[in-house]
Every structure is written in structure tokens, then in C-alpha cells.
């Protein structure tokens, strides 16, 4: 099965190599890996999607914890979480075919971010299944996908959950401001629907 791990790591040279080397050593294939900044300076967030038997998740997490510089690990797949991916697609399109693609983009809530005489670029954010849905429609509609780039998954738990380790380190800032908490929930509601719709 696919596991989605979120690891907060110190932003230091070589740490990513340690993380990926660990998966290689455990003989676990990484499906996708994203790395980026967080709300804390000096801490990077890595989201790792990996293929492994269900019962292997605890050991993978524990092994990640063992790496120096790994501050916290979460198996977000086990919790209610928002999981998103961004994809950019360059599709062959001329004057005649463009408008159909515009319509498709609207249905999938994708955006056209570049337009050229023979092609256009579409940007889509959402669950993996939503992106795959768009790709499937494009392929079945005989559109030529000239280029595709996907970020891999990013994930965040729903609700007021924050890293226990960062709190233990003295970082008491709540991950989500309680005042805006209800707004966040409202804002997320359509996405929740979207996840289910495309699942």
C-alpha cells in the first residue's frame, strides 16, 4: 500500500540524502518526495509517499526518527488529512481546439497559465486522483500532452494538530490561529467534497 509520511527535518546539507538513503536501505520504493520550507526557520518539511506493506509503516517511522536532524515524523495517511499535488501540463492546442481545453480546465478547476500558438500550459492542484482524472480525459480526447510535471504529494493533517516535537522545543505558536480556525474549516469544506468526488 501507499504510505504518506511527513518528516520535519533540519534544513542542513546532506539531510535529504540521509532520508532517501534510509528508504533505499530499508528496500522501500519512494513514489514521490517533496521538500520545502515550513513556518519555522531552519526546518524543512518533506512529504514522502512510499510503497510498502501496511505493517512496515511503524518501522519506517521509527527509523526516520533515528536519523539525526529529523525532528518529527507523522504518518498522515492514517489520519484525516488534506493531500494535494500540483501538476503542470503542456498540451498541444491550436485555435480550434483551445476552447474545449478552456472548458475542461474550468470543470477541473485548473488554470491556463501560458498560451502559445501551438500549445497551452495548464496548472492543476488537487488530489492525485483529480489530476489523473484530467490526464485521462485528455488522453481519451486525443489531446497530445507534450510535457507534464508533477510535484508529488504534499500533506497536512486536518484540525488543530501540530508537531509535538516542535512544541517540546519551545515553539508554542499554534499551527493554526484559533480565531481563524473556523474559517479554515469552512475554506476546506469544498476541498473535502472534491476529494471524495474524485476518489
Amino acid at each position: 500500500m501507499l504510505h504518506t509520511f511527513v518528516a520535519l527535518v533540519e534544513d542542513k546539507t546532506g539531510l535529504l540524502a540521509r532520508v532517501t538513503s534510509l528508504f533505499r536501505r530499508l528496500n522501500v520504493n519512494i513514489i514521490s518526495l517533496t521538500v520545502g520550507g515550513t513556518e519555522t526557520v531552519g526546518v524543512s518539511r518533506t512529504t514522502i509517499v512510499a510503497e510498502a506493506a501496511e505493517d512496515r509503516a511503524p518501522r519506517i517511522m521509527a527509523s526516520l526518527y533515528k536519523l539525526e536532524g529529523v525532528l518529527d515524523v507523522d504518518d498522515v495517511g492514517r489520519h484525516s488529512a488534506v493531500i494535494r499535488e500540483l501538476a503542470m501540463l503542456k498540451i498541444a492546442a491550436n485555435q480550434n481546439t483551445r476552447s474545449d481545453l478552456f472548458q475542461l480546465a474550468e470543470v477541473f478547476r485548473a488554470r491556463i497559465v501560458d498560451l502559445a500558438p501551438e500549445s497551452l500550459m495548464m496548472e492543476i492542484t488537487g488530489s492525485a486522483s483529480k489530476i489523473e482524472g484530467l490526464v485521462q480525459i485528455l488522453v481519451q480526447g486525443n489531446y497530445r500532452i507534450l510535457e507534464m510535471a508533477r510535484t508529488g504529494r504534499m500533506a497536512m493533517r486536518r484540525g488543530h494538530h501540530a508537531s509535538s516535537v516542535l512544541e517540546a522545543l519551545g515553539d508554542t505558536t499554534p499551527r493554526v490561529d484559533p480565531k481563524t480556525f473556523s474559517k479554515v474549516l469552512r475554506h476546506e469544506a469544498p476541498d473535502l467534497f472534491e476529494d471524495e468526488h474524485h476518489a
Partner: protein
Amino acid sequence: MDKRKKITDTHRNSPDTAIYTQPTPLTGAETVWATLVGEGVRDVFGYPGGAILPVYDALRKFPIRHILVRHEQGASHMADGYARASGRVGVAMATSGPGATNLVTGIATAMLDSIPMVCITGQVSSKVLGTDAFQEVDITGITLPITKHNFLVRRTEDIAPALREAFRIAQSGRPGPVLVDITKDAQQNTAVFDFAAAAPQPYRPHPMLSADSTSIREALELLRTAKRPVILAGQGILHSGAMEQVRALAERTQIPVACTLLGLTAFPASHPLNLGMMGMHGESWVNHAIQQADLLIACGMRFDDRVTGSLSTYAPNAKKIHIEIDPAEINKNVHVDVGLIGDLKEILETLLPRLPGRDGTAWLHAISAMKGDASVHDIQQLPDNGHLYAAHVINDIWRVTNGNAIVVTDVGQHQMWEAQYYKHDSPRSLITSGGLGTMGFALPAAIGAKIACPEKEVWVIAGDGGFQMTSPELATIVQEQLKINIAIVNNGYLGMVRQWQETFYEKNYECTPLISPDFVKLADAHGIRGTHVNRRADVISTVETARQNPGAFLIDFHVEQEDSVYPMIAPGAALHEMIRRPKHNPLVETATEE
């Protein structure tokens, strides 16, 4: 120059202690030694070379004994043996490139056996890093999967913090080796040395490392209701210093103890509750007890494939409690019912006051009955049939040394015979490469053990194959004037491989017959006394001679060539499906087939 005199002059200039109380400008090289001294290091095993020369140049200013090895693999094994014998962090040092790569086998050995060790390597100058400069190798890349952590230090001011953190990491939690790679320019430049400010963050056990009260309750419940429990004692007991607690647990609950190879010295061999070693070459009653148990209490061990046999048939009726500091070991090989993650000593101290006494007589009697004639272990009573057996040699060394020596073994048949016939009553008195099974380990590791514990009697027991892998370290023994006794169990074969060929490859002894030099002459060439032994009658007197000899002594025991270690579990077979000692084996009067 009299090299020996120079080298044994360990009291070099004492450093100005002021450098530890007030920040002082030091070169990177001086910082390396100052930090080591500050961390309590007294001995370093190493080999100089271009990229580490600035550090060696600064050595004369610091009170550290440097042991010059003959191959860097020896340095890492010595640091390893030093750590195993003393519990203190062992330190190895080498230059860049080949010096660093030669350390690798020793680092992996320490990693697999969780040994606290710090390796310091020189690296080419930071300006040429990544250009394939002379003797440049990406040693932090190479050692990434075989170290607990490693550092590449490019700036002088980072040396002390990196080294101090390396010591913290090596010792905390589950111990392991750490490598610090320091560029030559970082060694040469000067920065302010502030020992206190370089202190690492204190070790913060992860929240997962807590035995929660529910698990403790469950463990107590299992312990209270068990009818046929067995304690599995591993090396974690030594790391945690929980020897007394494990003993208290066993005695209060009358639960018998089976040991792993690395856990053999964690529980006294002479204790009536000690069953002996479990696993591939464990005695039959030990493995049968585990297979019939209804509860296993695993203390600081990791259910290695050499102790479980086939996992699908392992202890099928037993509930399992696993007390372990490394959460990644829980449920790795064997599914456990209760995992208690944390320091073994602390967890046992939580459990012990809440454990009532228990009558274990029935189960202990049942195990005794399983021993039957397989327990004919007093091999001294067996008549001399004109042959010399390794088991006799090792048993005699045990008797003559009263079991008080530190025995350092290599890997192979003699290692298993040692585990069977030398009875260890004191902690850390057996030093052996378990997880990686590194041939060539014994001689250098014994040097490390002797440096760590100069007051102890140290015996090397090695096979003729493994001994030749690192035999140049004989010169190190001489240069350092060490009293180490060496017993070579010489059967003219790579014995354990030959045994496998005998059992699983139809006696096709491919590439296992082995010609060796005359080890006594080899010792003599180094200025070490030695003698050959071919007869059982000569074993005890020669062992005595070796002990009385003021310097190192080598005995080449020419033992029976095609002797095998029994019992034996074929790879993939169940723990109870042992190949027992054959009836004609002179080491047992009788034995029953499984």
C-alpha cells in the same frame, strides 16, 4: 630512536587547563585533541597521512596515548574492542582516501553491534573538495548507511561542536559509530576554542521512547500468568548497565535466562538460572525451551536471524514482551505482544517492585529433563583418544584462567566453541563480532581491549584463516609492549565454511583448505614468544606458560581438521530442528537424534 620507549611515554605535556575555562584561539588540529581530552579520551588508535598531518603534528601538546596501527581496519577494530571492554567511546583516526576507506569494515562491525565509537578522518582541503584531489574520497557518503551519524567539517570553528556532538550521538540511546571528516584547511586555520559553548544539545529521548503505563500493566499481567517463561538476554543489558536488574528479575520470578552471543556476559554463566546460548549453535535444551515457552521476555536483543531460525515457526506458543531502546526494532522480525521502548534498566526498575515472586520449579524441571544426556558437558572427563579438539583447548583456557580473562574471538567455528565452552561470569569479558561476523576482528580488538583494561588478562582466540587477515597487528602489540595471549585454533581449513560445505554442499571443500605460515615463526619474527601444541596433554601447561610469560605469547593449537560445531540449525530451519552432535563425536558420550 628507541620506538618502544618513545611510544610508551604516555605522559606527554599536559595541556594548559585554562583552555577549558576561558575561550582560547587554537588551530583546528589543536582543537581536535583539546576536544578529545575534554571528552575524557585518553587513547586514540590511528595511522597518519597527508590530510591528517596537522592533527598529528599537534599531538605532542596533549596527554593522549596514540597507538600506531598497521592497517586502518585495525584502528577501527581496536577502537571497537576498547569500547566493548570498557563501555567508553573508542576513538580511531585515519587520513583521507584509502586511510578512511580502510576504516569502513571496522565501522560497519561497530554499527551492526551497536558499539559507541568516534572515527576522525582527515579530508582534502575545502578549496579542492569535490575535484577528485589526491587521496580524496567521499567518506561521509560511503559511511552514511554504516554510521549512526557523520559530519563533514570544513571550518575550524565547527570542529569542537561536531566532535562533541559525535560523542553525544555515539553514546546516547542505542550506541553506534560516528565519523567526523575534517578538511585539512580546517585543521590548519585558527579559531577560538570554547569547550563549554561547543556542548551539544542534551540527548532528548524521543516521545516514542517511553514505556507507557498500559504496556507496563500488560507486561506485568503476562509475567504473572506465564507458566513457561524464558528471559532472552541481549547486549542491550550491558549497554544499559542492567545486569543486576535482569538478575533480580530472573531470581524473583525464577525465570530461566537464555543469552544471545553478544549477551553471553550479561548474565553469569554459572548462575543456576542461566540456560546458555540460544540460536544457531545454541544447546538443544535452550532452543527447545524457547520453542516450548509460553512467554518470552526479550531484554535488549533484536531477534536476529541467527537466534530465531525460521520466523514462521519461532516460539509459536509464546507471548512476547520486547524491552528495547530502539523503536525500530519492535516488530521488525518477530511480532511482539508488548513492546516496552526505553532504557532497559529504568523499565526493569519500574517492573520489579510490582512483580510478585513466582514458583518456577515445574518449568525448570521440565527444562532440566530436556537436557538429558545432551548436557554431558564436562568434556574433561572424556578419555584422551590422541586427538586435539578445539573444544578442549577452549575449555582448558577457561579452567586455567578461572574464567576471569577477557576473551576476544574472531569469527567462525572457534567463536562458537568459545561461546559453548568458555563460561563467562563477568560482564564484558567476551568480545566478538556478532552482527557483521567480521573475520580479522580478534587481534586488533584484543589490542583495544588491553589498552582499555591493562589490568585484565586478555586472550585472543582466532582461527588460522581470520588470524591472517589482520596478523600485521602483531607488530602493534610489540611496539605498544602489550601482554596479550594468542590462541590460534588451527585446523587448516576455513572451518565454518568447510562445515557448511560438509553439511549443505556434499563435502565439496572448494577453496576452504588453507595453507598458513608457521605462526610461531611469525610471532618470533615480531619478537613474540610462541609454541605449537598438538597433544591434549600439553594444553594446560602451555596455557600456563603463556600466562607466566611477561610479554605477549602465541600458541598455535593444531586441532582436529574436520571437526564441526554442534548443535546446528540449518538456515531457514525451525529453532527446534537442530542437527545434533553425531553419536561418534568424541565430545559427547551419547546424543539423541532429533
